[in-house]
């Protein structure tokens, strides 16, 4: 366990963002909450620069897709305070027709590739990103493969039927 408990952490965040923090939970002891898109950069800046918390390390930026929800695409930020050895997970959900996020590259240069990957697989457009293009898939791909919009296998394929393999 870190030097700061989750309660203290949540208190110091709520002191500044009382109205914005929702859906607080602690899965596996990791403080997790949701916040609006307008406040995310402000919150990340606060967490990084606050002299007590010092969440100076951005572990990961990724996304998640819940097709049945009203706001299906969620962008997830994992921060790690190397000083206090405590982690936090922040989620921001956006509507389907408006998958835009402000970029975190203004705070961490490491966010550059993470955001490119998130754009590559989920189609989240990070406004203000210096070089937003695909990073892992081929450039001419038109889909975002990690979204739950596609069948797991093309039902019309015949080239991998069992009888070709003596099964």
């Amino acid at each position, binding site marked *: 366990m870190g030097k700061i408990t989750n309660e203290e952490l949540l208190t110091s965040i709520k002191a500044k963002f009382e109205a914005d923090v929702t859906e607080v939970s602690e899965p596996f002891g990791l403080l997790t909450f949701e916040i609006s898109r307008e406040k995310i950069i402000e919150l990340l800046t606060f967490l990084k620069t606050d002299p007590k918390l010092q969440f100076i390390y951005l572990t990961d930026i990724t996304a998640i897709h819940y097709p049945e929800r009203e706001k299906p695409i969620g962008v997830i930020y994992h921060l790690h305070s190397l000083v206090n050895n405590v982690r936090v997970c922040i989620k921001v959900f956006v509507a389907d027709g408006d998958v835009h996020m402000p970029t975190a590259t203004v705070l961490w240069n490491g966010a550059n590739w993470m955001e490119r990957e998130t754009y590559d697989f989920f189609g989240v457009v990070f406004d203000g990103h210096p070089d937003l293009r695909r990073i*892992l*898939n*081929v450039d001419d*791909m038109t*889909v975002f*493969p990690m979204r739950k919009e596609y069948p797991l*296998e093309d039902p019309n394929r015949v*080239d*991998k039927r069992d009888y070709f393999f003596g099964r």
Partner: protein
Amino acid sequence: MSDIQIVDAPPGVEGAGFFATSIDKVMGLARSYSLWPLPFATSCCGIEFMATMSPHYDLARFGAERLSFSPRQADLLMVMGTISKKMGPVLRQVYLQMAEPRWVLAMGACASSGGIFDTYSVLQGIDEIIPVDVYIPGCPPRPEAVIDGFMQIQKLVQTESLRRRDTPEYQKLLASYGIQ
């Protein structure tokens, strides 16, 4: 008699001090016992190929001692492992840079058909972008299977006619891949 085994001479006319046979048989013999492979290894099959190259299995016995990591003097492109769609153009460029005559060997399930990676990002067999001569099944194939595939290639090389690369069928095959 010694234990040294020598390759049999091709069929021909033998006499005192001379031996006559057709040029393509001699060329095939020479080419097949000095194939220079270009190993294009991406994953586990590449490791298995390293075992094939190492002393226990010793691919060098077949005249393939010099692995060319440049397409410049290579005869045989050995594709081993998963080829993703992003790697496809690179593999194609390597193939295009090889001089004729050239042969292609697809080793393992991934290179032959995409294998277990039935995915949007993986090429479902390298024969979608370049012509293939021999496929080695297995996941990964044992070194014995690689040697068998290599010997199949040698058979092809030995029996290939000298003008095969100029035939309209071959040109048509290459044209179907958009080469030249």
